[in-house]
């Protein structure tokens, strides 16, 4: 806690709310500091705290005029953009409760959450969200108004339920003229224990559950995180991951409002990587898939580079890995390694970091799912301070985190201040802190299961090692028992394999089975490029995935990984799937975690094929896939099975 000790946070009382803090910051910074930036029409447009304040005020009062009362729910959907944060802050200011939906949610998910949460207002970005709203409005009679802000394509919409954000703001402005003190008054009515967010968790198994979080929960979580890693007001942060993910809320809201750092919004989701590079953020928090993609990008470029560049990269990475290894084992780094590392940094690491947008990064975290040790090593070899964090929506974000210079791949670190983490005799991880949630909305039974005597029961298993680090196995039901009786986490195999640039997703199977097998989703762009370079013709993902050459390629990657595994955990057979796993098909959660029980049922023919005694070398599949607009298409395919004998 070296750096954190010097951090002077604010005092969080039971009376303090996020809007009150927002008011203080707006007063303090006014026109002098940029609160957020958005890239629009090719230019980074700054928004000062004063502008931020004015906009939130207008929207908040507009919401009041529309009839929003304390405790009413406001559902929001859309990409990350300043308007999104303004509406969330505005809803909180007037005592409303924010609910975030994933942009790519299908209609059924949207209508379930809107209806279950009793949302009165819905805020969407543009035409796509408006269409969703109009489709479900008959099923959700409690919803009164829908606010939209992007006028593109909206010219023919005249449903009385719809209102533009501009209109809401002008209504708000009028109300402000009539009652100039109203905005401050409603903010002052707020209490720390008021609910501010209703967070629907994706859930790998059942229907989404709505976790109730208070201002106090959110603020204490942010503060305790910053007691470990303090952020300062001159920091930059890029907000591009869905607001419906607690990790983004904890950075943009919990920490952002306390530290006062600048939020940056990318132009479009597709330009996020480019925009991150332009900003060069100091702090970053992303699920493993983002880091996995970065590694894949580097590996692909490496494969494409000239001989000299490849050699330079190999040389610099070797040094980087060596130095990282010394750091991990907490051994002193000899001067000659330091010198070599300096040269490697100058020649290669620095430029790579710049391309990845990590040139100014101080603290970067991964969480939300398991990440393989190879990825960890890669970033530390580059000199990027990547740390694992662990937590749940139910604890307002995170509870456990790696400290600088105390990083172990297989752990998630130590609890943040004011947080106790224990493991029950059954092996379940439980935690207690001021940030533990208030319960699930309208689900008392689920609440009783998760909250016992103030302890949050996570449903994850794990243990605390001799250094006091927490080790998380994963969801209890996801641990597999191998044929020799040992317990094994399939995630371990999956994350190791995903280090290969050719493999995008893996599903390892082996629970109570004679041997371990896996289903592989190849990375279309990388394998596609690989095939083109070798003059292998293909027209589509299904065709490419079934090419014998591609099977050999995947096999080689598996053989490489198998070398370092105990015999019982080695993958013996695999199959290349004809499509990528997709959240629209319910195979992944919206945060891209594999839903094992679901895929096991959906692909039971494949599992059967992988474990049939007869010398079967292919499986016939007859199934459906769902497009984002809800259309369902039938697919028939024969999938080969390949054995791996090494």
């Amino acid at each position, binding site marked *: 806690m070296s750096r954190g000790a010097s951090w002077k946070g604010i005092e969080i009382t039971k009376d303090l709310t996020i809007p009150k803090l927002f008011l203080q910051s707006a007063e303090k910074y006014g026109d002098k500091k940029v609160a957020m930036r958005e890239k629009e*029409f*090719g230019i980074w447009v700054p928004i000062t705290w004063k502008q931020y304040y004015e906009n939130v005020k207008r929207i908040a009062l507009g919401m009041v005029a529309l009839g929003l009362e304390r405790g009413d729910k406001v559902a929001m959907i859309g990409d990350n953009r300043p308007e999104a944060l303004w509406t969330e802050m505005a809803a909180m200011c007037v005592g409303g409760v924010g609910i975030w939906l994933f942009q790519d949610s299908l209609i059924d998910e949207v209508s379930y959450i809107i209806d279950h949460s009793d949302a009165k207002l819905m805020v969407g970005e543009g035409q796509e969200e408006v269409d969703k709203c109009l489709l479900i409005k008959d099923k959700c009679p409690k919803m009164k108004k829908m606010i939209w802000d992007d006028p*593109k*394509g909206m*010219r*023919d919409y005249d449903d009385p339920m719809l209102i533009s954000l501009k209109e809401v703001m002008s209504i708000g402005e009028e109300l402000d003229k009539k009652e100039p003190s109203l905005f401050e008054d409603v903010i002052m009515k707020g209490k720390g224990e008021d609910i501010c967010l209703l967070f629907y968790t994706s859930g790998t198994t059942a229907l989404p559950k709505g976790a109730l979080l208070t201002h106090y929960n959110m603020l204490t979580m942010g503060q305790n995180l910053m007691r470990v890693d303090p952020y300062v007001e001159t920091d930059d942060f890029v907000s591009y991951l869905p607001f419906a993910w607690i990790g983004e809320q904890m950075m943009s809201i919990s920490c952002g409002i306390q530290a006062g750092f600048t939020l940056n919004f990318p132009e*479009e989701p597709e*330009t996020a990587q480019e925009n991150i590079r332009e900003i060069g953020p100091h702090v970053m928090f992303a699920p493993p898939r983002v880091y996995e993609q970065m590694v894949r990008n580097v590996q692909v470029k490496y494969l494409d580079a000239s001989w000299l560049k490849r050699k330079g990269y190999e040389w610099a990475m070797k040094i980087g890995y060596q130095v990282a290894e010394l750091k991990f084992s907490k051994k002193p780094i000899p001067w000659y390694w330091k010198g070599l590392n300096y040269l490697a940094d100058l020649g290669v690491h620095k430029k790579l970091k710049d391309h990845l947008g990590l040139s100014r990064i101080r603290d970067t975290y991964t969480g939300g799912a398991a990440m393989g040790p190879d990825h960890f090593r890669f970033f530390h070899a580059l000199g990027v301070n990547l740390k694992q964090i662990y937590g749940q929506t139910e604890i307002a974000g995170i509870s456990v985190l790696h400290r600088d210079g105390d990083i172990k791949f297989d752990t998630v670190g130590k609890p943040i201040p004011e947080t106790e983490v224990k493991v029950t005799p059954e092996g379940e991880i439980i935690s207690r802190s001021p940030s533990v949630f208030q319960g699930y909305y309208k689900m008392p039974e689920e609440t009783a299961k998760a909250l016992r005597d103030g302890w949050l029961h996570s449903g994850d298993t794990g243990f605390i090692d001799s250094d006091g680090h927490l080790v998380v196995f994963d969801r209890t039901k996801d641990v597999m028992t191998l044929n020799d009786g040992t317990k094994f986490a399939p995630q371990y195999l999956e994350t190791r394999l995903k280090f290969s640039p050719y493999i995008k997703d893996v599903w390892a199977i082996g629970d109570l089975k004679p041997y371990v097998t896996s289903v592989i989703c190849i990375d279309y762009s990388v394998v596609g490029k690989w095939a083109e370079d070798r003059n292998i013709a293909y027209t589509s993902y299904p065709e490419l995935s079934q090419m014998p050459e591609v099977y050999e390629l995947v096999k080689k990657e598996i053989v490489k990984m198998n070398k370092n595994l105990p015999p019982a955990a080695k993958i013996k057979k695999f199959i290349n799937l004809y499509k990528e796993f997709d959240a629209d098909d319910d195979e992944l959660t919206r945060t891209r975690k594999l839903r094992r029980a679901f895929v096991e049922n959906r692909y039971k023919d494949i599992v059967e094929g992988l474990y049939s005694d007869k010398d079967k070398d292919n499986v016939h599949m007859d199934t459906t896939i769902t497009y984002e607009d809800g259309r369902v298409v039938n697919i028939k395919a024969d999938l080969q099975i390949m054995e791996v004998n090494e």
Partner: protein
Amino acid sequence: MAVSDEVQLRVQDLHISFGGVKALRGVGLEVRKGEIFSIIGPNGAGKTVLLNCINGLYHPQEGKIYFEKKEITRLRPYQRAQMGISRTFQKIELFKGTTVLDNIRLGRHIHLKTGLLSGSIYFGRTAREEVEHRDFIEREIIDLLEIEHIRNKVVGMLPYGLQKRVELARALALNPKIILLDEPLAGLNLEEVEDMARFILDINEEERWQTTCVLVEHDMGVVMDISHRVMALNFGEKIAEGTPPEIQGNPQVIKAYLGEAEDLYVSRR
């Protein structure tokens, strides 16, 4: 956009032949301001030739073309472009080695008032002018066509569907009064077709643009969905003209498509 009664483009009795082939035999049409006017017909019917005559790539042997009441039959292509006639090509005609942004800027070139000399000094009015044009391109075109993520990419490296979009962007940079679209949907996949149809509607209906569109297209689903009026050509002759339902029911049109009658009703889905 409401279609006005004002005729914006009038083609009268157009004849053109290449050697012994009579590509157009007395074709006439009237496109009203604010309309989406589609030209359909089997391959070789003369659709592209007709567009080439309108924007001046070909010179008809007989007949007259009027744009906003002025005769343009003998004008050069660039003069017609200056009047506000813009077009896209069936086979993409972009500079493949330059970036998307540079291609769009080239479409804007006609509006540049400063000359070579002041351009090479780049000071004062010249600099201001460039910023203005850049602003127009960003706000009105790149945002509309959703190509932010490729603005600095080299055109030749882009997938076909995106190149088609850049082609449209280049044509829009002219800020046209009428845009001639030659098979904008050919070779696109379902999602890209839906996007492109949406863009055409945007260009036609969005208050900022309200541009008349002349569309040559084979995708009957889209043509019948978005057109105000449709004209059918066969062997260089007009065989029918009317609203989409009228054309769908026209026996001559059905015959020209040689029993492909179903195609007129079935869209891609």
